[in-house]
């Protein structure tokens, strides 16, 4: 079992779509939101994804295909 902490960023056209709910239905992933905010031109959600590692990877690929940006919760870690 794996636990991944991520930040989803949504453009305005995706904010009204229940993508996190869909993620939980499509895949064997438990989602647990810790912080979130919606402003005029974007929304973001900080959450953890719990489940089998490969299932989480598939789920992340699925939500990225739908236009959601997925980052590690600590931001970019690859530094110059």
């Amino acid at each position, binding site marked *: 079992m794996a636990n991944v902490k991520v930040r989803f960023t949504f453009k305005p056209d995706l904010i009204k779509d229940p993508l996190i709910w869909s993620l939980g239905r499509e895949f064997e992933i438990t989602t647990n939101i810790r*912080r979130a905010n919606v402003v005029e031109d974007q929304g973001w959600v900080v959450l953890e994804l719990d489940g089998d590692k490969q299932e989480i990877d598939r789920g992340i690929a699925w939500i990225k295909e739908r236009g959601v940006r997925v980052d590690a*919760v*600590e*931001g970019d*870690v*690859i*530094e*110059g």
Partner: protein
Amino acid sequence: MANTTVHKCKECSREYPLSPMNVCDFCFGPVEVQYDYDAIQEAVTRESIQAGPHSMWRYAEFLPVDGSNPVDLNAGFTPLVKADRLGKLLGLNNLYLKNDSVNPTFSFKDRVVAVASTAARDFGFDTIACASTGNLAGSVAAHAAKAGMKGFVFIPADLEIGKVIGAAIYGPTMVAVKGNYDDVNRLCSEIADQYRWAFVNINVRPFYSEGSKTLGYEVAEQLGWRTPDHAVIPSASGSMFTKIWKGYNEFHRVGLIDKPKTKMHMAQPVGSSPIVTAYDEGTKEIRPIRPQTIAKSLAIGNPADGYYGLNVIEETGGTAHAVPDEVIIESMQILAETEGIFTETAGGVTIGVLRALAQEGTIKPDELTVAYITGNGLKTQEVVESVVNPITIEPDFSAFEEALKGL
């Protein structure tokens, strides 16, 4: 860790015992090391600092590790130089440059990695790791070697060899990840979670980031125990920017200097300027981007401290500016030709923004200004290859004289 107390979440203020952790267990916000400032005040005076080593460790009382036996390459206490010729060109009479390009691995990263390495060793890790396209890799590899610890450096598989010779020479294990920037990011977060390794800017990030405060302390001490009217600072994640301000304020907190009134100016390249964009739009919400700039050391598309950097700008009455690649290159040349300092592209960003601030009158001619030069030009030579333009002559004295006439 003599003067530290707890980790505290920057978002929800929950507190945790000090350990290798970087996010709050409750809200996943970033945690920051807290200090017993009364104890620091008891322990330091201007004289005690001046009697300390000629390195960043003269400020050991302010750092979140035991400074009696650090992993030490003698980083820090770099020159603060009066930039008369550059100042004259820009109409600035009181301009200084903080030259961190001369650190042991030629960038300011030696400061933060020194603290992270010391913390990692003291927590019992046997491996220090990072994901990097340049400066951080070199510093981590060098500090791992110095500490006798294993070093792991993750790089994108398509990274130019020249960028990583400066890391490979110290003998770390280099892992080239096939995939894009995002893939390397995510993989390293996962590895940091699974392996008992100290990823310097992940699980020991709260310790790592504190090393940047020494850039604030040093400038204050070198200016004669005062802070500048303006500071111009290049930013990727925003961490160094916020920590320099923290350094100025900590010196004030323990009674070493007057309250800082520095205007903090952030400098980013246009191709990776999510914090500047938010500033320009008057929002604190950072929109992550895909970096595209020659200033690779500043290429962070999702800056962890962007929001906090914007807070510092607001608090100090500072600004945030971005400059395009051509201005970066031009500014690198201007700095070299006026002050004899060869900086990398990040330094070109700093000088480019300094030029803009001077031109628009944000910095007045007599105001005390410090521009932070964070890395060495040898790291990004390829962007200024066009400067090599020799006069070619036959091996003949008259040919030389003829050529000289034409100059």
